[in-house]
């Protein structure tokens, strides 16, 4: 078999991973990092002062992104499995979720969750309080409900990105030849066992690169939560600017900090991608 010889000459996955250390795009990361350091050293005021002022914002942006991403991977998996489920009801629910959410801008979804959702919950709470005495305790709690900024941001990003990531999972699952499921089922495995042991382990290799890209996109889109008063990097940047009135310096630094984080994430994604790709 000629294929066999070719397969053995290609680097083993682990070796391919080590080469990433020399990936030329790391130079971009290094350049941006050096630029930030030099700017901070050369002009501590405003740049270093700005970074100190935005410290908390950086932490908020990173934690919202990471926590949302974990939730998104789970919601997306459920949506993806729902889209390929055999039950038409489950498939229908998953499809409606995906189509509706993809059709509404993320910003509008966030505004809805912060401003419209509490109104709905409070309304239900007041109704329970007045008309359903046994549930008045729950009613009271709901009537007084407000939304925590952080939780609202995570919910909004998760619902929105869960739909996109669900489609990535679906495409990955459907890219595995039908014969794999048939072989697994013919050996007596249940549909779930076949998914867990045969389909998903193969699909995950296909979907890792697009999943990684979604992380980078999420990191950038998380800036939208600044609109609903979450103190992320953009929000803190705006506060800093309104105190100092130096827009050029402020937004240059915010842009550089985002670039630093996205370029770094993209390199990690590329690393994982090469490490998990294998010769078929």
């Amino acid at each position, binding site marked *: *078999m000629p*294929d*066999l010889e070719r*397969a053995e000459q290609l680097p083993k996955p682990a070796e391919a991973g080590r080469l990433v250390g020399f990936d030329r795009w790391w130079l971009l990361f290094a350049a941006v990092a050096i630029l930030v350091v030099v700017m901070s050293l050369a002009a501590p005021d405003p740049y270093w002062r700005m970074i100190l002022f935005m410290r908390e914002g950086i932490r908020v942006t990173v934690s919202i992104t990471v926590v949302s991403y974990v939730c998104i991977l789970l919601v997306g998996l459920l949506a993806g499995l729902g889209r390929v489920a055999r039950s038409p009801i489950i498939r229908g629910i998953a499809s409606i979720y995906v189509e509706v959410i993809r059709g509404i801008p993320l910003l509008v979804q966030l505004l809805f969750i912060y401003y419209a959702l509490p109104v709905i919950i409070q309304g239900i709470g007041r109704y329970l309080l007045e008309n359903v005495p046994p549930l008045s305790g729950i009613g009271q709690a709901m009537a007084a409900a407000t939304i925590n900024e952080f939780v609202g941001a995570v919910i909004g990003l998760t619902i929105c990105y869960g739909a996109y990531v669900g489609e990535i999972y679906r495409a990955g699952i459907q890219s595995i*030849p039908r*014969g*794999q499921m*048939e*072989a*697994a*089922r*013919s*050996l*007596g*495995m*249940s549909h779930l*066992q076949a998914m867990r*042991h*045969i389909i998903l*382990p*193969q699909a995950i*290799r296909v979907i890792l690169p697009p999943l990684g890209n979604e992380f980078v996109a999420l990191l950038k889109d998380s800036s939208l939560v600044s609109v609903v008063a979450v103190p992320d990097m953009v929000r803190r940047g705006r506060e800093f600017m309104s105190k100092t009135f130096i827009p050029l310096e402020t937004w240059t630094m915010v842009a550089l900090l985002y670039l630093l984080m996205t370029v770094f994430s993209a390199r990690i994604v590329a690393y994982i991608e090469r490490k998990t790709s294998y*010769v*078929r």
Partner: protein
Amino acid sequence: MCAETASPVGGVAAGAEPIIQIRDLHKWFGQVHAVNGVSLDVYRGEVVVIIGPSGSGKSTLLRCINHLETPDLGTVVVDGIPLTEAKNINAVRAEVGMVFQLFNLFPHLTVLENITLAQRIVKKRSRKEAEEIAHDLLAKVGIPEKASSYPNQLSGGQQQRVAIARALAMQPKIMLFDEPTSALDPEMIKEVLDVMLDLAKEGMTMVVVSHEMGFVRAAAKRIVFMDAGSVVEETTPDDLFNNPQQERTRQFLSKILK
């Protein structure tokens, strides 16, 4: 042919219960009537070969036996278990091994893992027990040294032999072969057929979709000729080659036998 005429040919003891009973089976794919009222009995230890032109419904019929395709009408009873209720399907699949044209090995698992996975999660065997069975079967199909290879490192013939070992590891009562040699280079066909002949000699009940006439002559007890979703003729290999009853059978044989 229909239910009343689906009788054993070729010396099967009268009164024995068939291990596979197919009655008046129909399957449509959209407008295509892929299987059109097929009835077929297979007895324990029998090797039945199904031949016919492409699109004649032979693979679909085979796939109905373990419900990879759900019949639209008719019944399939395997070893006394009717395949009408969903909970029976996994019970039947545990007794019926299947070998596919394109092998369908699991590419992310080694040969050994391919053979042990279902044993461990379906039959709940220990790793040690499953691996012992796997090594025995790999020796039986003639590639004991390939246990830790991945499927993409094997030739087609080796992959198909692993697929046979994988199915046998579940200790099936019946083996279904769906054109097991059609995707193989000529020089690899024999190594797969030899394994199948050994199985037949050991008394395995086999239903084989194949046009390998060497295998038909050497192992088949009965041969079923299908065309356009129906059974045209069902007879012994000797009768089929020397004395085909139907004009369509004669036409088909004249094309595949040079």
